C-alpha cells in the first residue's frame, strides 16, 4: 500500500474492475448524458484541475526522463550549470557497466523469486488450503497476512531488521544459530523472503476470489474419480482461473519491479549485493549526482513497465472479447 502508484486496494479494485466494458457508446449512458446541463465548456473546467496535476507530475516527468537520459547532467559541478547532449553514451555506458548488469540480474531474481514464486505461489497455496474453511483459523491467517501488507513500509523494514539481527535477532534465537548474519551473508535471499512476506496478501485474496469460480461439484467428481491434488489443480482448477493467474502475475511483477522498500532494509548492500534497479538509480543519480546517467536507467525501467502494462491490458481486452 505504500507505493506512489499503488496496488488497487481491493475495495476499490472491485469498483475499477467492474468499470471495464460498461460504457459503450449507444447504451443508456448516451441517453442520460449531461443531465445537469453542464455543457462542454464547464465540463472541461471540471476536468482541468485534475488534468493539470496529472500532466505536470506524470506526463512531464516521463518525457523529461527521455531528455535527461541523453545528457551528461549532474547534480553539481560544471555539467550541472551547462549540461551537454551526449546522445546514447549513457546507454552504452550502462550496458558496459558491470554494476548495472549485476543490478539487472538481481532485479530479475527479486521479481521471479519474491513475486512470481513467492507471492503468487504462497498466495495460491494459502487460498487453496483455506478454500473450504470458515472458522477462526482462516480469519487469523488472513488477518496476519493482510497485516503484513498494510503496515507502513519503514515499520515492516525495521521489523525484519530486528528479526534477522546478527546478535539478538529472534530468528537466530529460534534456529539456534547465534551470530548468523543473514543480511550480510544472504542479503538477496533475505530481501526476497521479506517481499514474499510483505506482498502475499494481494495474491491470496485474488486467488481466494478466483477459486470461488470453480464449482465444488467438479472438484468432488474429480476427487471421487481418484484424481490427485495435483491433477485436480491442473485439470479442474487451473483452466478456470487462468485469467486471474495472468492478471496476478503481471500486476505483482510490475509492483515488485518498482519496489523501493529493500532500500530500507539493506540499502543495496553489502557491496551492492542486493542493489536492485530502484536502489541503483537512487544511489547513482541522487546520492552520486549523476542525474543524466540515472535518467537513462530510469527510462529503461519505464520501458520495462510499459511492456508489462501493455501485456496486461492486452490480456484484459482479449478476455473481454472472449466474453462477448
Amino acid at each position, binding site marked *: 500500500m505504500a*507505493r506512489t*502508484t*499503488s496496488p*488497487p486496494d*481491493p*475495495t476499490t479494485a472491485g*469498483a*475499477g474492475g*467492474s*468499470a471495464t466494458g*460498461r460504457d459503450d457508446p449507444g447504451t443508456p449512458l448516451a441517453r442520460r*448524458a*449531461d*443531465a*445537469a446541463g*453542464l455543457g462542454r465548456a*464547464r*465540463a472541461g473546467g471540471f476536468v482541468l484541475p*485534475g488534468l493539470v*496535476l*496529472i500532466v*505536470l*507530475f*506524470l506526463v512531464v516527468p*516521463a518525457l523529461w526522463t527521455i531528455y*535527461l537520459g541523453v545528457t551528461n547532467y549532474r547534480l553539481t559541478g560544471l555539467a550541472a550549470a551547462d549540461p551537454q547532449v551526449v546522445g546514447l553514451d549513457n546507454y552504452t555506458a550502462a550496458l558496459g557497466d558491470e554494476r548495472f548488469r549485476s543490478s539487472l540480474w538481481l532485479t530479475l531474481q527479486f521479481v521471479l523469486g519474491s513475486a512470481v514464486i513467492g507471492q503468487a505461489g504462497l498466495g495460491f497455496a*494459502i487460498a487453496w488450503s*483455506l478454500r473450504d474453511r470458515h472458522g477462526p483459523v482462516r480469519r*487469523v*491467517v488472513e488477518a*496476519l497476512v493482510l*497485516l503484513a501488507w498494510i503496515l*507502513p*513500509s*519503514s515499520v515492516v*523494514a525495521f*521489523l525484519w531488521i*530486528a528479526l534477522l539481527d546478527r546478535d*539478538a*535477532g*529472534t530468528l537466530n*534465537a529460534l534456529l539456534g544459530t547465534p551470530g548468523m548474519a543473514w543480511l550480510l551473508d544472504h542479503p538477496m535471499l533475505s530481501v526476497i523472503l521479506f517481499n514474499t512476506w510483505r506482498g502475499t496478501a494481494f495474491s491470496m*485474496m*485474488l486467488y481466494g*476470489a478466483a477459486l*470461488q469460480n470453480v464449482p465444488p461439484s*467438479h472438484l468432488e*467428481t*474429480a476427487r471421487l474419480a*481418484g484424481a490427485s*491434488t495435483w*491433477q485436480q489443480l491442473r485439470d479442474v482448477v487451473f483452466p478456470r482461473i487462468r485469467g486471474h493467474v495472468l492478471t496476478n502475475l503481471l500486476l505483482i511483477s*510490475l509492483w515488485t519491479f*518498482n519496489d*523501493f522498500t529493500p532500500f530500507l532494509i539493506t540499502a543495496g548492500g553489502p557491496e551492492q549485493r542486493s542493489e536492485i534497479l*530502484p536502489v541503483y*538509480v537512487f544511489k547513482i543519480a541522487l546520492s552520486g549526482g549523476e*542525474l543524466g546517467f540515472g535518467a537513462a536507467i530510469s527510462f529503461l525501467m519505464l520501458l520495462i*513497465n510499459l511492456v508489462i502494462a501493455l501485456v496486461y*491490458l492486452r490480456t484484459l481486452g482479449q478476455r473481454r472479447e472472449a466474453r462477448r
Partner: protein
Amino acid sequence: MTAGPRTTAGPATSADPVPTAGPGAALGWRGAVVQIGRYTFVSVVLGFFALPLLWLATAPFDRTPTITTSLPEFTLDNFRALLDNPYALRSLWNSILLSGGTAVLVVTFAALAAYALSRVRVPGRDALLYGLLLLSSIVTGTATMVPLYELAFRLNLIDSRLGVILILSGGLLPAAIFILKDFMDSTPTSYEESARVFGASPVQIVWQIVLPMVRPGLATVAVWAVANVWGNFLVPFLLLRNPEKAPAAVIMYTLYTEGGQANLALLSTFSLLYSLPVVLMFVFVSSRYGFRFHGGIKR
C-alpha cells in the same frame, strides 16, 4: 475433466469385494495425509507471518525492550520516549497533513473530473481514461525519481510539503477518476433532471444532488489515498530536507539508521503509534464494506 487413467478408478472398483484394500480405505488414508499436510502448511504459514510481527506487539510494553522478541515485563513507560524526542510526534502530525491534504485534493479534483466525464460525452473519453490509467501504473515514483527531483527543484518545491502533496496527488488521480467515474455512472440521472427543471444551476446540482449520492465512492477514494500517502517513504524522503517537516515514514527510517545505539523504547512505541491508524482504518473499512475481492472482478 480429469483426463487420464485415474478416472477409471472410480465407482467401478468401489464394487470390488476385497474389503481391506478397497478404494474407500485408500481414499481415507490419502485424505488423512492430505489433511495433515494441510494443517502443517497452515501452521508454517501462521508462524512465518506472525514471527516478524511479534516484536511490534511485545517490545513497546517491555520494561527493557531488546531486539529479541520476548514476553514483556509490562510497562507503559516506553511511551514517554515519544514525548522526549523532538521529531516523533511532530512527524505524525506531518503525516496527517500530507495524507489529509492529498486526500482532499484527490477527492475534489477526481470527483469533478469524474462527474464531467461521466455525464458529458467528450470525444476520445474512454481512450483518455485508459491512457491515464496506463500512464499512472507505468510512471511510478521509483522509475521517475530523477525527473521528479529535478522538477521539484525548478518549481521551488524542494523542502515543501505542498510539493509532496501535489506530486502524490498527480500519481493517484488517474485511478481515483477511474473509480469515481464508475460510481457516477451507476447513479440515476433523474434527480439531476428534475432539479434542472426546477431551475437549479449545474453547480448546485453537482453540490447538492450528485455528491451526496456518491458519498461511499468519495469515502473509498479518500481512505485509499490516505493509506497510500501514510506509508509512502520515497517521495518525502527525496523532497523534504528539514527533519521538522518529515513525515513518520521518513523519521522512522532515520530513527533506526542514524548512528549510535538505537533507542528501542522510542522505536517500538513509535512503530506502534505510526501503524495504528492504518490498522484501524483497515478494520473500519473491512467491517463496513467487506474487505475482499468479489467473484466477478478482475475477469
